[in-house]
């Protein structure tokens, strides 16, 4: 028979060691993720996103959440309105959930969140006749200039996102060279 105090000590030591290992992992990934690499592996890409997020926010452990590979990218009427930008959507939840936020703005014809091109989960709708972005489950609405924050996939380079998700980007922002922010729901 093992004594309770012996078990407590050993159990704690084991858990602390495993915790250290887990908390160390994202740090080692973070360095390589800063490099602009095109990842073919979904899991690898998820880890990449996770590490970028950790670098930016220090929030989570570095766990990729794999989304379904059957992406249905819909660009609701990307070219039907001359006055409003287009929105890009993809089914959520995204691979990795963290906190994203920024000003909702028009980036050369597509919706952007701060400096990043915005990719929305399919729970969002964009009315390009009124310029209203709506989170359908709650009915919460946003307009250009509003701050939009919430949980999402964090981000990544558009080229990589397209490679992994086969995302169809409206022509208005097909040449986007920057990052994207993946937004699941408002926070």
């Amino acid at each position, binding site marked *: 028979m093992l004594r309770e105090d012996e078990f407590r000590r050993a*159990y704690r030591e084991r858990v602390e060691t495993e915790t250290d290992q887990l908390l160390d992992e994202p740090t080692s990934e973070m360095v390589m993720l800063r490099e602009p690499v095109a990842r073919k592996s979904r899991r690898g890409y998820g880890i990449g996103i996770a590490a970028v997020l950790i670098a930016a926010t220090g*929030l989570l*452990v570095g766990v990729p959440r794999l989304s379904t590979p059957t992406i249905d990218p819909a660009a609701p009427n990307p070219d039907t309105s001359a006055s409003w930008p287009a929105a890009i959507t993809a089914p959520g939840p995204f691979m990795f959930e963290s906190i994203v936020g920024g000003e909702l703005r028009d980036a050369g014809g597509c919706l952007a969140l701060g400096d990043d091109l915005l990719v929305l989960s399919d729970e969002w709708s964009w009315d390009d006749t009124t310029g209203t972005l709506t989170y359908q489950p709650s009915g919460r609405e946003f307009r250009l200039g509003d701050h939009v924050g919430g949980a999402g996939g964090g981000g990544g380079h558009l080229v990589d996102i397209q490679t992994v998700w086969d995302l169809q980007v409206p022509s208005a922002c097909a040449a986007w060279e920057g990052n994207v922010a993946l937004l699941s729901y408002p926070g």
Partner: protein
Amino acid sequence: METSVTSDEASAEIARFIAAHRRALVRLAVGICRDASDAEDLVQDTSVALVRNWQKVRNADFPFAYVRQIMVRTYMNHARTTEAPVLNASTVAQRAPDALDELEAIDAALSILQGLSPQARTVIALRYLDDLDDAAIAQILGISRSTVRVTAHRALKQLSIMRGPLRPRRTRRQD
């Protein structure tokens, strides 16, 4: 008194909160899940729930305790539908060595722990990692104190752990 904050302030608060408690959350998740991958998922799910419920968390008397409860209940809800059948007592008894030295007994206990029910692992983690008493564990799990006590008793028995006062240390015979 409840207060609300802007989304910018909330994001900053959440970032500070998770930065401050990240290790404790990961540690508890590791203790409960006994699997690194599952622990990562649990921390992630808990973090997402935290973001969604931030106003409640920040206005709670003990925000970390609130988030810990979110984690435990998230795990239990998930485990109810996904966990593989746990080892039964007879199986465990066959795996547990009878007379091994302390190191082997510890390894055996930690190995057997992985096969216990999610509720038993959670009780063990809350008791031996977070040092919570039966009443606090019962409140977190939403069960009675007696259920906690029985769960812990059975788990310790399966792990071949002897409760109670420490046995006297062996002393060298003075020659």
